[in-house]
């Protein structure tokens, strides 16, 4: 019986010691840590507005090819393609990619033309967190089309120390 009475005390003592140590560590670590800047959805919206302006943003025509589950956010393969005949009269002018939770909303912006032949581009990107990736295509007639993809990241990029 006495053993049973001792146990909670021992754990409570250990808990108190651990809590104190942790509080101390946090207190020391906080002033040193760089406050990670983060693109909130508002700043992403602002970045999108900068590209799109007042034009309406339509859904569709753009295809985002990105793995839904990423182990390492430091190099995420990303392919953006867009349905378009890519002729002199009807082509994709530009493709912009935005992130929701990276420190900066912009990921990449590419300029295409009728000589591209195919409106598709691949690259490798960094993702700081599980988030939504948005791609916007600007057509030669001035319309904007967008699509989004949800990505889950296990190991985040950029924000961890060396």
């Amino acid at each position, binding site marked *: 019986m006495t053993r049973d009475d001792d146990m909670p005390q021992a754990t409570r003592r250990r808990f108190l010691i651990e809590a104190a140590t942790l509080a101390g560590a946090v207190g020391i670590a906080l002033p*040193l*840590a*760089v406050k*990670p*800047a983060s693109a909130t959805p508002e700043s992403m919206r602002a970045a999108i507005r900068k590209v799109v302006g007042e034009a309406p943003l339509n859904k569709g025509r753009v295809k985002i090819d990105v793995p839904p589950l990423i182990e390492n956010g*430091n*190099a*995420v393969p990303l*392919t953006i393609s867009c349905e378009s005949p890519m002729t002199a009269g009807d082509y994709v002018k530009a493709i912009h990619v935005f*992130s929701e939770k*990276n*420190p*900066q909303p*912009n*990921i*990449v*912006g*590419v*300029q*295409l*033309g009728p*000589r*591209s*032949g*195919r409106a*598709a*581009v*691949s*690259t*490798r*990107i*960094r*993702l700081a967190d599980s988030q939504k990736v948005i791609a916007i295509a600007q057509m030669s007639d001035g319309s904007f089309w967008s699509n989004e993809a949800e990505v889950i990241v296990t190991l985040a*990029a*950029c*924000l*961890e*120390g*060396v």
Partner: protein
Amino acid sequence: MARALINAPAKAKRGDIIEIKTLISHNMETGFRPDNTGKAVPRDIITDFICKYNGQEIFRAELFPAIAANPFLTFYTVATESGTLSFEWTGDNGFTATESVDITVE
């Protein structure tokens, strides 16, 4: 000079859509990463990439810190005439790199 790799077909039929792959060695320091003293490491990235086909611009990309180290880009173009594909990267701290490959169109 940074090492760049270009993968483009040496020969193509007129009117074919060819795939061009480019890779350049660059660590793309984001400017958000803290070093061991807790200060952020200054940003050092490639900001622009341009591809020209016989001097005419066919592809341009604006890169941001969210591009992974050793920027890799794949894009397409229509093989119109024999000539040179030239590639140009520019970035922070006066970084520039150029590379070119020849293509024969028949």
